[in-house]
């Protein structure tokens, strides 16, 4: 990556988040921020609370304590529809697409929050509703072009290989024109080539649209390559936060995550 990337103010700050399910503590006093325009990685061993953190950010889970500041507004908790309409989109660890629908239709659902006409108008498909539909379709086609999935435009998603489904899911998230994109293990289960493609798309999204990206990822190579800053969780607590180089050198991270000391270079 080229050296000096400059980022704006924080787009999102989480402060002192505590989340527990019954007696099980998932997150404990976690605070960090995400700067406008950066690629932010959240890493940690299994069960460290990474996905929980993502779910707190977009309002799936409601923390018992702490606050979330998104674009200058501070809240105790986010609501999913709030998150979606204010520019947060996400993909899921286990793909959550409509398997029987085509790639095109799946991505079109990502435009949902942008549709202004009500159901009746859309059902009638007259004048304004038609124009609106065309606008959305146009945007979706740009997403398809961007992700280079023209060849599967009309293929039912359930028939696609896993790596492609992941890409369609990213497409649906992009269709919402997010300012903050949350990716939950976008490269899990992919082969090397698919990973490289995905990395390129993530970087391109960040570069082309200036979208801020927060991603959870297991593949350390990927994390070190594409993220600007990394936050490390372990047993629900933040144990490190910094650039990939700093994190990699952090003794606690090595112990908790990488297990053994090794020289990568």
């Amino acid at each position, binding site marked *: 990556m080229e050296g000096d990337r400059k980022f704006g103010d924080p787009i999102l700050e989480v402060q002192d988040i505590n989340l527990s399910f019954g007696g099980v503590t998932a997150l404990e006093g976690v605070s960090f921020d995400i700067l406008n325009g950066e690629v932010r990685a959240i890493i940690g061993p299994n069960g460290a609370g990474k996905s929980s953190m993502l779910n707190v950010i977009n309002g799936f889970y409601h923390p018992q304590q702490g606050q979330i500041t998104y674009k200058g507004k501070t809240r105790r908790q986010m609501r999913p529809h709030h998150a979606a309409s204010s520019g947060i989109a996400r993909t899921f660890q286990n793909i959550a697409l409509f398997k029987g629908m085509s790639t*095109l239709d799946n991505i079109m659902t990502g435009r949902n929050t942008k549709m202004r006409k009500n159901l009746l108008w859309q059902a009638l498909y007259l004048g304004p509703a038609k124009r609106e539909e065309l606008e959305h*379709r146009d945007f979706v086609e740009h997403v398809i*072009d*961007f992700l280079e999935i*023209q*060849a599967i*435009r009309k293929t039912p998603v359930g028939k696609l290989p896993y790596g492609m489904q992941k890409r369609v899911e990213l497409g649906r998230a992009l269709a919402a024109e997010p300012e903050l994109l949350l990716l939950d293990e976008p490269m899990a289960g992919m082969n090397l080539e698919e990973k490289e493609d995905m990395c390129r798309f993530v970087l391109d999204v960040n*570069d082309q649209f200036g979208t801020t990206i927060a991603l959870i990822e297991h593949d350390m190579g990927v994390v070190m390559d594409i993220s600007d800053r990394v936050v490390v969780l372990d047993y629900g607590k933040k144990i490190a936060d910094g650039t990939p180089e700093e994190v990699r050198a952090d003794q606690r991270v090595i112990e908790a995550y990488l297990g053994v000391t090794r020289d990568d270079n």
Partner: protein
Amino acid sequence: MAVKSDTFPKLLLENARRFGDRPAIREKEFGIWQTWNWRQVADEVRALACGFAARGFKRGDRVAIVGDNRPRLYWTMAAAQSIGGVPVPTYQDAVAEEIQYVLEHAEVKFVVAEDQEQVDKILDVQERCPSLREIFFDDTRGMRKYDQSRLIDFEVLQREGREFDQKNPDYFVQQVEQGKGEDVAILLYTSGTTGRPKGVVLTHDNVLITARNGIEFDHLTQDEEVLAYLPMAWVGDHIFSYAQSYVSGFCVSCPENASTVMHDLREIGPTYFFAPPPIFESLLTNVMIRMEDAARISQIIFTYFMRVARSVGPKILAKEAVSIKDKWLYKLGHLLVYGPLKNTLGMSRIQLAYTAGEAIGPDIFDFYRSLGINIKQLYGQTEASVNVTLQPDGEVYPDTVGKPAPQVEIKIADDGEVLYRSPGVFQCYFKNEAETREIKTEEGWVHTGDAGFIDDRGHLKIIDRAKDVGKLNDGSIFAPKYVENKLKFFPHIKEVVAFGDGRDYCAVMVNIDMEAVANWAERNNISYASYQELAARPEVYQLIEDGVSKVNEELAADPNLAASQIRRFLVLHKELDADDGELTRTRKVRRRFIADKYRTLVDALYSDKKSCFIETEVAFEDGRTGSISADLQIRDLNVYTDLKKAS
């Protein structure tokens, strides 16, 4: 009629007047086919040409084009030609070093690249291309971060061109008028299987006369639909998608991207189509695989009507008489099978399809013809602006490449090499006097490097590379690859090595196709534990012998090749492998190496032994070596002596 336009730019202006609103080129983008009519194309080309001029492009300068088939890249060709420049298309999948060679050798001044991927390649090698001044890119994606001083957006270039055009309104037309038919139109680098690629210099006359002849020969009109999906650097695409479109005014469609070609083919439904044999082959394989999964009833209908098609289809296509019953059966078959099948293949509207480049299997060829798809073979070279021979309608045979194309003369040298002379013959290899003189004689004859002969129907038959053709001891010609290819068309045979040069007769070593033979063995309850065991089974020998026999029968029918009938053969106990040096990396057999390595086997083939023991060293995938030994049987075959045995 006025004097025909003798250059591409003049043709373009003529088309803009003649065809005006008719579509000239299409591209699928954002899911929709975007169309430009001839007037719009002329306008785009004009802006582009003026843009080049504004940036200091002079007559005779060269522009490289790197990318997939895109309207803008085709316009670049015409724009460069408008102001006396020479376009140099390069293969879009070439690695940076290969592109660098072309850029440096052709002394390219400008490059028009499709996208970031291509730009990256050129930036990698730009230091080694001293003549390179500026790079233009079509797709802006990912280009924001690049240093833009030498990298210019295509749209910016055209905008500058329009400004330039306003200040110098006469410039463009004057430049176009200056062009002459004998000017260099294009520099095409042949991919060259051996050594460095050579730049073939073709003039407007070369390309346009050849294109016109082809159009007249096949009665092509302005209503054809063509899909431009083969590399722009390849002469075939240049003729079919560019030259012939300009000459006859038909519309060319560019696919959305490389992976959507099959979808786009179906949407466009071309009427005029070119594909090398492997594409036709893989389309057929896809159909067959899908049929195997189809319902039983569909399979029965399919099998029945395909049998009808095979016996009747080619005759109907050749406009020969068939019985009324057959005619109606074929019509019913069209309704039930052929029509839907052609639709799936995107071939519903095909009037004419060509294939060339290598021999096409007769089965594959017949399959398409029996469906009523007029697929024909041609023989061509970059040096000839493609067409050397073409198959005329009504005279289509799977084993020939046709008759000399209009205005093409052909002669066969004493050693069997095919030579031709035509208006399409190239000027020279760029900056390569020595090789030009080697290939092209003073009188304009071009050595093809291929050996062949004209059969009694007046058709050219290509049998092998001239340098591989030898002679049997009785003096008759021996073309190993011809024999090998004939055998390889059998699905059970994977590789063949034929011997015969300087021998009394032809003998072959065969490699079975494991997948096909294993499948066959399973169906026939033949058990085996290994490749070696399967290859040695008498049943397998019989299977191969049937194939070899059939080839002999075909060879016997041809007086030039009857002597090459196979007398003895054996089935090898191991697969020929590139790791053992027996094949090249492109899977061509290395005959000499094999003859050396299996000397004992070759000697046995030319003795009267019934079997031969051999021990071979093999390299395993992990790099270790081992040895396998086997006692191979050798089979004798009867040869057909009576040439007219068929009666």
